């Protein structure tokens, strides 16, 4: 019955306060062409809110890799330096070494960071560069159509592993967070996910912590954020959160892998 539904097209005129606006302050335009149910905008929101919450807005510089998320590179009220595929960590290194008082983050996908740019992120972490790298991990190269990356799980169906990733033919996934956590220069390494509100809240805490570690000059910080890609996973938008839990999370388990402040 139509009467059941409450009006949701105007704000309450009195007796209520706004607790969350449509877009985070540091996002210019909310509309984008990413797929329905994509986890990347969810992750971007969490990152942008965290930058603001720690009071680093007017010192923040974002270095972007290349992937679906690149759509945000010219859509932020944050200074952005656009890098090439895989190369954001070296650019971030140069920015932070030249301007040590800035807050420098990278936004990269799994294909960008673990395929093309594995050397870059490992060396940047090993050197303990005071930057924070964010990896949006959906286990596929989303922008080019949904192909296997180094993080794709065994058995995961992608455009070029239509029968599921097979170790014999396609090898094994790389757990880049675990590799980074082994490096002495890494001060904070964590994995989050955005497939439900609870996970978004936990991931937001990890993001804030990573940024605080950078601000404290403790070393390299890293948060891997598992995101949904219903298009790349050949699933419905409503099935993608569970698919993340059943397929990606067992390989890349959410949690804090390293925290030098703990």
């Amino acid at each position, binding site marked *: 019955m139509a009467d059941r539904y409450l009006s949701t097209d105007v704000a309450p005129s009195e007796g209520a306060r706004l607790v969350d606006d449509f877009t985070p302050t540091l996002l210019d335009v909310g509309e984008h062409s990413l797929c329905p149910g994509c986890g990347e905008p969810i992750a971007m929101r969490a990152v942008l809110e965290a930058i*603001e919450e720690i009071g680093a807005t007017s010192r923040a510089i974002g270095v972007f890799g290349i992937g679906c998320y690149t759509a945000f590179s*010219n859509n932020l009220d944050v200074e952005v330096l656009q890098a*090439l595929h895989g190369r954001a960590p070296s650019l971030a290194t140069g920015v932070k070494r*030249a301007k040590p*008082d800035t807050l420098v983050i990278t936004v990269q996908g799994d294909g960008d960071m673990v395929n093309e740019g594995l050397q870059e992120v490992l060396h940047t972490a090993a050197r303990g560069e005071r930057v924070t790298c964010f990896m949006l991990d959906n286990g596929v190269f989303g922008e080019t159509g949904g192909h296997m990356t180094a993080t794709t799980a065994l058995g995961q169906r992608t455009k070029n592993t239509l029968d599921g990733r097979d170790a014999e033919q396609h090898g094994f996934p790389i757990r880049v967070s675990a590799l980074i956590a082994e490096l002495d220069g890494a001060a904070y390494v964590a994995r989050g996910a955005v497939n439900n509100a609870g996970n978004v809240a936990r991931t937001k805490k990890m993001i804030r912590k990573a940024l605080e570690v950078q601000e404290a000059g403790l070393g390299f910080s890293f948060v891997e954020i598992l995101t949904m890609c219903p298009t790349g996973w050949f699933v419905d938008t409503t099935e993608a959160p569970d698919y993340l839990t059943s397929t990606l999370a067992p390989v890349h388990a959410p949690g804090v892998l390293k925290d030098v402040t703990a």
Partner: protein
Amino acid sequence: MSAVTAELREGSEAIADAMVAAGCRFFSGYPMTPFTEVLEHMAAKLPGVGGTCMNAESELEAVGMAWGAAATGTPSATGSTGQGLSLMQESLAELCLARIPLVVLNMARAQGDYWQATRGPGHGDARMPVLAPMDVPEAAELVALAFHLAATWRSPILLFGDYYLAHTSSSVAAEARELGPVPVDDWSLNGSTSGSGRARLLSPLGTTKRNERGGYDLAQHYSNCAAQTDEMLAGIGPMMESAFTDDADVVVVAFGTPAKYVRAAVARLRAEGARVGFARPITLLPFPSAAVAAAVEGARAVAVYENNTGQMVDDVRLAIEGRVPVQFIGRLSLDGSGFGIAPDLDSGYLRERIQGVLDG
């Protein structure tokens, strides 16, 4: 008249000193002969002036780190030898599209990188200006010019050096060269415009933000970059040195360190009465086409000497447009190490090669 202080410096160190004097405060590189000593000197000198020198994990990251530092408005440089420059080509081409100033050194092995330098920077239609010194004092001057051009045009600029420049010691003026003002920096990133509603963007994909006219339009951006490239190439005066060309029958063209030997051979032949002239492009891009064409007017032959299998000779032919026949009198000349020591750089040998053209 004020005295100029001159100091004896090995080329790698003279180039490093010139970079620091020009304001370079960030350098990144990966060891490779004959570039390695420049990296060593920058590592030694930059911390003392508040700069940073990074040992990158490969040439890809060397150009990447320099890209990041340069994006903050910090005068920055990187370099390698030809093979390392090959690795950097994607980044150099995209740096041109992002319009970020950067000085890049190719301490080359011989002269086989002419095409790489001038048909670069990599993929696409960008052009990267190229300066080719013939000796250490000129290299020091052209380093200063390179930083000035990079800042003026917001572009990567290539300095084409080599093994001889790296390892020859020469007397170099110690004072910094003053080249005049550069445009105000209204583009670099330091975080301060974040949150202002107009946060800056530096991207090879374009300059328009989503909330201005809908965002990236690569067709428009590439078109804008092409127009900016044209402006830059018109604004950089092509440079060429020439001698004895007014009445020359034969004009010899050469660039870089071999050109100094060629010039000496031409001078000796001229002293013996031969009607031979000399032209030396200093900017390989923009190539001094008009100057080359003017220098060879009235000559019956043009001879191009270079240590490769014939690369600059193409640009000489294009400049002359068929009016005078052009022949290639160079060849590969390397010692066993392949690092760029050319046995041919001997005045007797070069005289014979030029004499062959004079004898027609």
